[in-house]
């Protein structure tokens, strides 16, 4: 069923494939980011009760959604790395982890900056905030575990396993606001109902979410290419490529 994917398990093919995608992804990520964020931060109307402070959702929501999207992508790569034992899949895990960690940190920091004026508190140990913080620790754990073993094969296996087990946290983050009483509000757009946000604010938000997704792909391509070069530096095709 997945035979057509086989060539991309070869590092050289994947390197060139990512190289081909990279410029398109970078340009569209930049364009979407500029469009979505400038529209959202400067040109949407102010919220009826939060005033201008609500505008931070145009950064907070995309980074929070994509911190989970990045985790899903990282866990899928970890699954492939474990079952089929494909090296590049594990390099993809390590390529995504720091990007996801930064997205999670952005979501947490912007959320705190919004929470202080709106709720009245920087941080509350409710289920949504705590599970998102655990997501950050999972990312950091994957990065740390990978480097914690002198045998790199063992490190790769253990960190991939942690990445995969951490998937359990994703539904917990998403449904935390429904399963428990939390201070964090419920879902505005990621639900099977009409989004509870005015269309004038919804469109820039959707564009920003798409921008964060494309940026994630672009940065992953960039990091994966570097990882391939570093890991395959003694291979003839890399030597030929860098002219060594």
């Amino acid at each position: 069923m997945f035979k057509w994917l086989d060539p991309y398990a070869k590092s050289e093919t994947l390197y060139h494939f990512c190289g081909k995608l990279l410029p398109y992804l970078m340009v569209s990520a930049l364009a979407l980011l500029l469009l979505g964020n400038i529209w959202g931060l400067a040109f949407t109307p102010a919220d009826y009760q939060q005033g201008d402070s609500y505008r931070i959702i145009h950064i907070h929501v995309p980074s929070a959604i994509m911190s989970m999207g990045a985790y899903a992508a990282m866990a899928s790569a970890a699954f492939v790395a474990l079952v089929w034992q494909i090296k590049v899949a594990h390099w993809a895990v390590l390529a995504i982890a720091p990007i996801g960690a930064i997205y999670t940190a952005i979501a947490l920091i912007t959320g705190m900056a919004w929470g202080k004026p709106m709720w009245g508190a920087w941080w509350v140990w409710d289920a949504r905030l705590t599970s998102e913080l655990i997501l950050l620790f999972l990312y950091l754990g994957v990065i740390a575990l990978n480097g914690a073993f002198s045998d790199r094969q063992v490190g790769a296996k253990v960190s991939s396993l942690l990445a995969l087990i951490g998937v359990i946290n994703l539904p917990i983050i998403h449904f935390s606001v429904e399963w428990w009483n939390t201070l964090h509000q419920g879902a505005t757009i990621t639900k099977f109902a009409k989004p509870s946000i005015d269309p004038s604010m919804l469109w820039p938000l959707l564009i920003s979410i798409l921008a964060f997704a494309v940026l994630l792909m672009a940065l992953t391509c960039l990091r994966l290419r570097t990882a391939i070069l570093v890991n395959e530096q003694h291979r003839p095709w890399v030597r030929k490529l860098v002219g060594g």
Partner: protein
Amino acid sequence: MQPRRKKRLFSILLIISLIAGAIGAMLYALQQNIDLFYTPTQLVEGLGKDKVKPVVGQRLRIGGMVVQGTVSRDAQSLKVRFQLVDTGPTVWVEFEGILPDLFREGQGIVAQGTLLAPDVIKASEVLAKHDEEYMPAEVAEAMKGIRHVPPSQANFPVIESSVADGYSNPKDKPTY
């Protein structure tokens, strides 16, 4: 699929489902501890199957909607009191301090404090719980009839502070 890969696939799926089951059971068992706050109904009628009620003097959080027309403040200090409701009974919250900007009658809030009486909480902190709706002011006024006024500009009724305990109407005084 090669048997070797199949074996790895099944062992990974087994590990994940076992851990997911364990975490699920843990979260289920800890359900009431993960809740950030009591709702007024839970506070008055008790929580869970056993109808456990918090005891007077216990520190807890209460979350609910501020009942329309129940907010009143003291003329001389920052003392304010109001009622909270979810779907059933109401409870009183007393607070001394600055209310968050999103505080409004009809707004959801979460207050942390100690239980003075079975339905009275002396709050040390009041947090606004924002709902998931975002809209411009004109839309909010046209569609929902809500005009948000921050508490610093809202004219909540003032209670004569000459009355010893700060409550003008003895009927309003919580029973404790």
